[in-house]
């Protein structure tokens, strides 16, 4: 992921689009503009975007259909829909097609900017595991998928190395100096909302530790050898859930 968030604005109302662009540019985001869903899809095919903000009611394809198409193109695409026509049905439909949220116009811009800031800051995945070989291969897989990765090979440094701005912590259960649930307890004390995904090769041996960890809000436990598609899917789910929570509250 690049430094500046790349945001695509889609709205056939020129003034809504241009005012949004100006506001986002002032925040330092990189923005592009499409006046129609078709143009938006074309732009999305040519370049990657971190976030797409689109109106729903437009000529031609609706914003909801655009959202579905974009997510087919890029499965973890962050899509936010906006509308002047607040209806529960429409909201539900948008969320069903993968939108993170359906925001009402007039927009609460302070809230939206807060969310985008969060999106930008929390891009890194941190891996806490004392097996260097595992870390290296996993890191390669993730960076090739566009994630930025931070490795923490000594669990004693975990608490200091974690900034709290990670999108998720991949936490091994059987560490040299402690078990995963003890490390998690320490992390939770400081970062109660930080998403954590457990990994282990010792499912049977670590069973009770895993249970304790899940009880303090670990998202799930994956078992080594990791099945890559399953891992990626879980990571996307965790991210999406967390972003939704931030955007909706």
């Amino acid at each position, binding site marked *: 992921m690049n430094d500046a968030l790349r945001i695509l604005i889609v709205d056939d109302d020129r003034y809504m689009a241009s005012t949004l662009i100006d506001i986002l540019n002032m925040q330092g985001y990189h923005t592009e503009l499409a006046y129609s869903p078709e143009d938006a899809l074309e732009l999305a095919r040519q370049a990657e975007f971190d976030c797409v903000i689109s109106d729903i009611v437009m000529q031609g394809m609706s914003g909801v259909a655009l959202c579905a198409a974009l997510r087919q193109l890029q499965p973890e695409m962050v899509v936010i829909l906006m509308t002047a026509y*607040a209806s529960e049905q429409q909201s539900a439909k948008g969320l069903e097609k993968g939108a993170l949220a359906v925001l009402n116009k007039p927009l609460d811009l302070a809230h939206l900017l807060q969310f985008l800031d969060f999106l930008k800051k929390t891009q890194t995945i941190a891996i806490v595991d004392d097996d260097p070989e595992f870390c290296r291969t996993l890191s390669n897989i993730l960076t090739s998928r566009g994630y930025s990765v931070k490795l923490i090979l000594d669990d004693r440094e975990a608490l200091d190395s974690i900034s709290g701005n990670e999108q998720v912590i991949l936490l091994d259960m059987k560490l040299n100096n402690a078990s995963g649930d003890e490390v998690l307890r320490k992390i939770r004390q400081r970062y109660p909302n930080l998403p954590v995904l457990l990994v282990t090769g010792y499912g049977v041996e670590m069973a009770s530790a895993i249970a304790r960890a899940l009880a303090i809000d670990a998202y799930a436990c994956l078992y080594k050898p990791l099945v890559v598609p399953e891992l990626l899917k879980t990571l996307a789910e965790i991210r999406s859930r967390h972003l939704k929570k931030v955007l909706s509250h």
Partner: protein
Amino acid sequence: LVLVVRHPIISLLGLSVLASGFSSLGLPYAIPLKTLLCQGVLGYLPEELKSRTWQEISYPDDIEATQAEVDALLSGKKASARFTKRYFHKNGAIIWTDVSTALRRDAEGKPLYFLTSVLDITQRKQAEEEIRKLNTELEERVAARTRELEIAQEQLVRQEKLAILGQLAGSVGHELRNPLGVIGNAVFFLRQFQPDADDKVKEYLGIIEAQVHTADKIIHDLLNFGRSNSVILEPVQVSQLVKDALLRFPTPGNVRVVNNLPDNLPELKIDRQQIIQVVGNLLVNAYQAMPSGGEIILSAQQAEMGWLSISVRDHGVGILPENMAKLFEPLFTTKARGMGLGLAVSQKLTEANGGKITAFSEPGAGSTFVITLPIIEELIT
């Protein structure tokens, strides 16, 4: 049963007969009577009839009419007459009869005798009376049903109006949110763009922003009015609800609110947010009724079994009698500002919670609005 007798020949057809008097013409009285079924109709024996005039055995109200017929026959105006009249049965009961009579004259035209047949139509008359009664009943029922239908029709028309109003409101409201969104964006941008702008500039940006919020709230209220309200019922402490409403709809400086609600009121099973809004509407109306200040009295009491009434009474301008009927109609307002939805919404919400809302007013003295809501069943003793 009818008996016809001709003087001097007495018919044996088994009919009962009457004596007709000729006193005014000097003709002999009392034609001998065949008695066979005399008793069947009037219960008299023939000898008993001989000593009585027809007037004596006739129902008094019918004597005049009968006399008129007799006179008409005697004077030759007509040759025969047919009419109904009442006689007294020997036992005193009133018998309705159908009387057919003709005057027989001799060759010179002098009256000889009356030939009369009498039919007991008491049952028929009773039946007619029954029918008359049923007819009247039927007409009353039709009138009542017509009234019901008219009321139902009025309701349908009103609902139709509300539905169209809701749609229009929805359309307009949504459309307006687009330009409001752009204005909101523009103000946000200007604030960020010039964080060190002159205070006056900041003030004006604030004004624009506040007006955008106000406009959005009006749209929100309008859209909510058109929507059907789903009700989330829960046990609610009334005194706390009223206090919350007072917080949410703050009292202007020159208005004094006297809260006479006792703390130990029974709990209500209502949608808390909706009833806060209703109470709030009534409070705001009360505030606006007293622009130069005044007193508002809040009270509550158990109405009939199972109902609690909450009253908001102001000492404001009051409501004119001609406006009382239209008070809860949507878009009805006597104020310069405002759409006139407050009371219509209040009524809608109150009714959705199983209650009702009523208004009392004395122009110049003030108004009282009362909402009556159901108390939780389990707590009724």
